[in-house]
């Protein structure tokens, strides 16, 4: 092995020191910073990098010591830092239609210019695409497979319009074996199945903790809002299966329980409780949160962040690997609109909400097409109003502040009248 240059050794030591330091403090920002530093220095430390979709099976990667990197998480960061519109325009100049997903457009453009808030993602050694969230990721990862010229593994999770069929289970289960073989080839080493079991246990524990954190908002006043959940979500998405997640959410859960015990709400005067549907409008989360708070309305729960803990019922603690097939196939976006509506109704009851804010997201067809039907079902079954906001998760050109503001005011008027303000 070549002797590493001193500067590299120095940097690695620095990162390690920082990691240890932040592991004690466990602040989200620092954890994510270390995570991206590790990923960006993977070339030096000799670790492999896989780009993976947000709903993809990450546990085998963790078990193989591959660093998972999430273009969708990156897309959210780009959106939140308001750098999305420029990158989307760049993608359009490359020939991609402005009607395409803005995560995909941002990422495709970003890869060619190393732009965005962290100067681009580290180059992948392999791409793992799981289509349980959409068909868009398939096309997006094909684009990146051509651009980076690296192997692409497609983990195909057939859509479950009604129920879960046995032929689907057979097919997805077989692909888990193919996935492991793919990783073994890409990494040049065998999978340590014992380690994978440990990672599986940690993943499940992390998901349960995340569920417990989200469940604290069933209390009134809610100790945190969905906007907080959008922030704390990063870990269950990116580092699921590592002990870091357990530590972080354990502390967060304690903090939330403490707030509940002391009756501290996330917003000063919670009078109205709302449910959020769809991916956040990343560039406008702060504005929206302040806007709702000005009406004493709290977004107490959402269908988005709960998607990362919605299938624990299908996971077998003692046989994580086999049960992954079902858990990854039956996630929220891979089921029929009627089943999604039932999930929403359950959340309406659990979180005792007065209304729903639906983000009709131009970028995300599987999430948005069907919202009108869900809206009608909720209004019929629970008699609560639903507000539909037309926007986009990253591309600010699809957001009209004055229009959304007026609609929120009108919506809140209805809620106030219904509740007898």
């Amino acid at each position, binding site marked *: 092995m070549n002797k590493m240059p001193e500067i590299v050794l120095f940097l690695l030591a620095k990162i390690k020191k920082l990691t240890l330091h932040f592991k004690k403090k466990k602040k989200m920002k620092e954890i994510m910073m270390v995570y991206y530093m590790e990923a960006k220095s993977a070339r030096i430390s000799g670790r492999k990098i896989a780009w993976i979709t947000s709903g993809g099976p990450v546990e085998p990667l963790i078990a193989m010591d591959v660093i998972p990197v999430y273009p969708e998480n990156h897309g959210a960061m780009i959106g939140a830092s308001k750098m999305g519109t420029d990158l989307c325009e760049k993608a359009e100049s490359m020939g991609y239609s402005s009607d395409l997903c803005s995560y995909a457009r941002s990422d495709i453009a970003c890869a060619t210019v190393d732009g965005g808030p962290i100067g681009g993602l580290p180059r992948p050694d392999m791409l793992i695409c799981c289509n349980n969230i959409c*068909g868009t990721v398939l096309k997006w990862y094909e684009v990146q497979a051509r651009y980076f010229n690296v192997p692409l593994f497609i983990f195909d999770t057939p859509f479950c319009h009604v129920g879960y069929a046995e032929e689907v289970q057979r097919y997805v289960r077989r692909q888990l074996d193919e996935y492991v073989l793919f990783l073994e080839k890409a990494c040049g080493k065998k999978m340590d199945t014992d380690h994978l079991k440990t990672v599986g246990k940690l993943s499940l524990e992390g998901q349960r903790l995340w569920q417990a954190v989200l469940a604290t908002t069933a209390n009134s006043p809610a100790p945190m809002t969905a906007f907080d959940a959008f922030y704390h979500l990063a870990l269950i998405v990116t580092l699921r299966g590592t002990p870091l997640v357990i530590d972080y959410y354990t502390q967060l859960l304690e903090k939330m329980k403490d707030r509940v015990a002391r009756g501290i709400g996330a917003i000063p005067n919670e009078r109205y409780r709302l449910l959020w549907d769809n991916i956040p409008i990343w560039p406008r989360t702060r504005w929206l949160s302040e806007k709702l708070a000005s009406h004493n309305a709290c977004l107490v729960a959402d269908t988005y962040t709960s998607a990362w803990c919605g299938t624990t019922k299908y996971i077998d603690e003692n046989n994580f690997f086999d049960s992954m097939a079902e858990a990854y196939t039956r996630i929220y976006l891979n089921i029929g609109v009627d089943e999604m509506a039932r999930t929403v109704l359950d959340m309406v009851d659990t979180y005792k909400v007065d209304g729903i804010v639906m983000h009709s997201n131009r970028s995300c067809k*599987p999430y948005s097409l069907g919202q009108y039907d869900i809206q009608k079902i909720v209004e019929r079954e629970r008699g609560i109003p639903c507000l539909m906001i037309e926007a986009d998760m990253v591309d600010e050109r699809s957001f009209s502040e004055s229009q959304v503001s007026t609609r929120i005011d009108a919506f809140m008027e209805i809620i106030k009248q219904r509740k007898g303000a």
Partner: protein
Amino acid sequence: MKEWDEFYEILKDPISYGRKMKGQGRKVVGYFCSYTPEEIIYAAGAHPFRVFASGENIHFADAHFQSYCCSLVRGALEGALAGNLDFLGGAVFPHTCDSIQRLSDIWRMNVKGPFHADIVLPVKLDTESAKEYMIDVLKKFRNELASHLRVEITDNKLKNAIDTFNTIRGSLKRLYELKTENPGIIGGSDLYAVVKASMMMDRDHLTGVLPVVIHELEKKKETAKLYAGKRIVLAGGVCNHPDIYRIIEEAGAVVVWDDFCTGSRYFEESVNNNTDPIAAIATRYLERPVCPAKHSGIFTRGENLLKITREKDARGVVFFFLKFCDPHAFDYPYMKEFLDKEGIPSMMFEVEDQLPSEGQMRTRFETFVDMI
């Protein structure tokens, strides 16, 4: 020739034709996609009928689909909710893109036809396990349909159906080839009418009609002068606009082939009838030119388009897309680049429900045709 009148009659009023089929006691099964195993529907004694967007103003479907959903999906639902598709005894939804996926849900929840089948095909078509899964879902569809219609779909019936559809596909391909050999012998919109009507017409009747059309064109070919227009290829998804052929021809070009699911992707590759029929139908789907919503390698579609362009001696390609069709829009930049590298000019034309004004289209096509 009366055969032409028949094709045009169906195109002009597909609803009446569907109702007529129903009136004759046939179970009409609607579908939206070239991955529908028509052979199985036919073997069950039912009539496969491809549903296109009505082209009318969207009214009912607006209550279910946002404006950023493609006109094919919104238009199909519109037809059903408006009651135009009351002749359907069922609908089949092979899984392709995100919008069709949600169309199936919304159809099931709101149209509530007597029979609703999802054929959740694999998204990748290039692995052994995907092939086995493809066979599984086709078998499942066979059982579901048989039990709904209370018929037995025997292997013999399937083999007979495969023969019928191989014949139809072979005839349509022959028509395309005749046009390629001498584009002057049949207008683009006439050929379009034949292919589109073939997806709705009684198939037993169709197998008798197509050879007559072929014979007529073969005779014409011998005497016709070779057409001098510039040869181009169309590429995209569904084409529901026969007018574009006329406008292209008036601009001095002629369409010699396409990569449409309402065109060559519908008839390319026949089913091997010397093996298990379901496995053979599955194999055809794995091998025929792929829809962009499916995966079969990362360069396959670009290579196929280049191959078509070279084989048909075309001088340019027109990408013809439905607005909001994500799979095609994602593939466009790389496919265009493939063509650019080979010095093949191309243009992209995107349509929503209605075509843009004729003047505008004419200018764009004329500019393109001058360039190639």
